[in-house]
C-alpha cells in the first residue's frame, strides 16, 4: 500500500489573515511610511525637546539624583530612537531593493508587509544564541556589543535642531571620528573570536577597509572643521546659515560620501560581509540576539552617516521658519522635522547607491582609498584653509 498522500490533501494554501499578500497596495505602504516617519519625529521631539524642557522647568537637573534620572531617561530614549530607526530602515530597505529588482519585497506580515521587521525581531529573540565550541566566549559576546555601542555613541553627538542635542561636545567632530573607528573593533573581534575561515577573512578585510577609509573620512571632516572654524557640530550647522557647505566644500563632501559608504560596509564596499563569497564574513557564526545587535548597528549607522552628511554639508536643521522665533519650541520642532526630511532623502540616496553599484575587488578598494581619496581629501583640506582665509579677509 502506498504511503504517498493523495494530491487532494496536498494543495495547502496558508490561510489569509484579513488581507491579501498577492495584491500590491501602494496607498497602504505610503501611509505606513508616513506613520513610521511621524513616529520617529514624535520620538525625537520627546527625547530632545519635551523631556529636557520638563526637567529644566521643574529644576530637577540641579540635584545629583535628578541628573541621574535625566541621564537614564535620555539613554533609554536614545536606545528607543536607535531601535525605531533600525526597525523602520530594515523594512524600507527590503521593500526598496525589492522594487528595484522587480520583486515586491516582504508582503506577508502586516498590510503590504510593513510589519515584517517586528516579526523578524521576535524570531531573533526566540532563537537560541548559539556559540560554536572553540570560540573565546568573552570576546565572542563582546564584539556585537562594541559594534552597537559605537553606532550609539555617534547618535549622542548629532544635533537635530537648534539647541536639541544630547551631548554638545566642543570636540564633536573628533568624537565622531573616534566613535566610528570603534566600530572596527566589533567587526575584527567578531571575526577573530569565531575561529572560522569566513570570519577570519572577513575580519582581515574589515580591518583593512575600515582603517584605510578612516583616514580620508577624518580628513574630510577636518576640512569642514577648518572651514567653519569649530569642532562643535552645532557651530558647524550654525555656520551654514547663509550657504550650505556642500557648495564651498564640494570635494570634502565627495570624499566623505565615498568614505562613509565604505564605513557602512554597504554594497560597493561590502567586502567584509560579502554574502556571495564569505557567507556574511564576521557575522557568519552569530545567531539570535548577537546577530540582531550586528544588524541593529548596521542600520543605525545607515541612519547616522546620512544624518552626518546633512549636518556637515546640507545645512543641518536649517529651513524656512515662517516667522517663528528660532528659540521657541515650535520652531525647534520644525527644525528637527527639516533635519529628518533631509536625512530621509540622504538615506534614500545611500540605498539607491547600494541597489546600483557592484562590489569592488579588494585591491581596487585599497587603490581608491590611498591613491584616490587621500590626495583628494588633502587637497580639500588645503582648499578649506584658503577659503577660510578668504572668508576671514572679506
Amino acid at each position, binding site marked *: 500500500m*502506498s*504511503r*504517498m498522500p493523495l494530491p487532494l490533501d496536498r*494543495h495547502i*494554501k496558508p490561510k489569509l489573515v484579513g488581507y491579501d499578500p498577492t495584491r500590491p497596495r501602494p496607498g497602504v505602504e505610503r501611509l505606513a511610511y508616513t506613520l513610521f516617519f511621524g513616529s520617529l519625529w514624535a520620538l525625537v521631539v520627546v527625547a530632545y525637546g519635551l523631556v529636557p524642557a520638563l526637567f529644566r522647568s521643574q529644576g530637577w537637573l540641579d540635584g545629583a539624583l535628578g541628573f541621574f534620572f535625566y541621564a537614564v531617561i535620555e539613554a533609554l530614549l536614545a536606545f528607543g530612537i536607535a531601535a525605531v530607526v533600525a526597525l523602520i530602515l530594515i523594512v524600507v530597505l527590503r521593500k526598496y531593493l525589492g522594487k528595484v529588482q*522587480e520583486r*515586491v519585497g516582504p*508582503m506577508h506580515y502586516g498590510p503590504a508587509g510593513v510589519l515584517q521587521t517586528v516579526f523578524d525581531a521576535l524570531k531573533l529573540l526566540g532563537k537560541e544564541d548559539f556559540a560554536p565550541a572553540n570560540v573565546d566566549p568573552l570576546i565572542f559576546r563582546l564584539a556585537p556589543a562594541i559594534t552597537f555601542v559605537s553606532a550609539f555613541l555617534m547618535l549622542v553627538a548629532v544635533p537635530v535642531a537648534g539647541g536639541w542635542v544630547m551631548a554638545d561636545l566642543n570636540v564633536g567632530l573628533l568624537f565622531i571620528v573616534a566613535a566610528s573607528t570603534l566600530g572596527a573593533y566589533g567587526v575584527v573581534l567578531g571575526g577573530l573570536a569565531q575561529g572560522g575561515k569566513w570570519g577570519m577573512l572577513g575580519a582581515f578585510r574589515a580591518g583593512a577597509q575600515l582603517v584605510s577609509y578612516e583616514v580620508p573620512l577624518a580628513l574630510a571632516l577636518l576640512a569642514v572643521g577648518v572651514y567653519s572654524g569649530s569642532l562643535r557640530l552645532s557651530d558647524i550647522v550654525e555656520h551654514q546659515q547663509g550657504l550650505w557647505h556642500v557648495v564651498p566644500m564640494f570635494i570634502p563632501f565627495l570624499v566623505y560620501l565615498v568614505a562613509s559608504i565604505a564605513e557602512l560596509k554597504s554594497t560597493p564596499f561590502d567586502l567584509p560581509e560579502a554574502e556571495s563569497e564569505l557567507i556574511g564574513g564576521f557575522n557568519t557564526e552569530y545567531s539570535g540576539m548577537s546577530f540582531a545587535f550586528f544588524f541593529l548597528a548596521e542600520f543605525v549607522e545607515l541612519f547616522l552617516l546620512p544624518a552626518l552628511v546633512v549636518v556637515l554639508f546640507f545645512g543641518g536643521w536649517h529651513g524656512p521658519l515662517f516667522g517663528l522665533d528660532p528659540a521657541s519650541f515650535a520652531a525647534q520642532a520644525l527644525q528637527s522635522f527639516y533635519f529628518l526630511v533631509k536625512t530621509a532623502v540622504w538615506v534614500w540616496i545611500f540605498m539607491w547607491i547600494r541597489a*546600483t*553599484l557592484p562590489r569592488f575587488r579588494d585591491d581596487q578598494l585599497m587603490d581608491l582609498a590611498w591613491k584616490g581619496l587621500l590626495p583628494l581629501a588633502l587637497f580639500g583640506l588645503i582648499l578649506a584653509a584658503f577659503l577660510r582665509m578668504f572668508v576671514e579677509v572679506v
Partner: protein
Amino acid sequence: MSLLAEVWEAVRAIGQGMAAVNRRVGESAVTEFYPYQKPEIPPVSVQFLALIQNEDGSDRCVSCLACERACPSQVITIERKRNPAGKGFVLERFDLDFVNCMHCANCVEVCPVSAIVTVGDFEHAVYDVNMLKADKAFLDEIGRRAQVWYSPKFGVEIRKPDGSIEKAPPEMQPGGLAELLAGEEGA
C-alpha cells in the same frame, strides 16, 4: 587630461546605472505568489507521471512491461495476470518509486497505448522519504485529476468537463502553434 576623461567616464557610467535603477522602481513586479498563484506550465514538459484510465474506468494499460524494461533507474514494478475474460493481461500491481525516479520519461516514450503520461502536477514534496513510493491507486488518482496531459503517441489530450477524453486542438499540440503560423504564412 586622460585622468579627467576617465573620471568623467566613471561619473557618467555611475549616473547612467543609477538612473536605470531608478526607472525600475515604478514598474510592476513580476513576482508570483506561489501558493495563491500557480505558474502557467506548458503541457509538453516532463513534470510528473500518471496513469490514465479510459472513460469507462478501465485501465488503458495493457501490461506489456515495456516501461518496466525501458526504465533506466528500474523503479517501475509491474505484476500482471492473464485476463480471464479474453486475451491479454490485466494489471495487478503498478508501483513507481519516486525516490529514485529521475523523470526521464522513457516510460512515456515507449508506452504503446499512452497509459503512462506526463502531467503538469507539482507539490508532491513530502517530509518522509518513504512516502515517495507510489502505487497504482495513487497514479490513477493523479490521472483522474489531470485536465491536460501528454504522451508522444497521442500528443496532448484534454479531459472535457463531461469526463470524455479527446485530443487537444492543434494550437495546444507540441509545435502546433509553429505549424499554424507556418500554415498562415504559406497561405
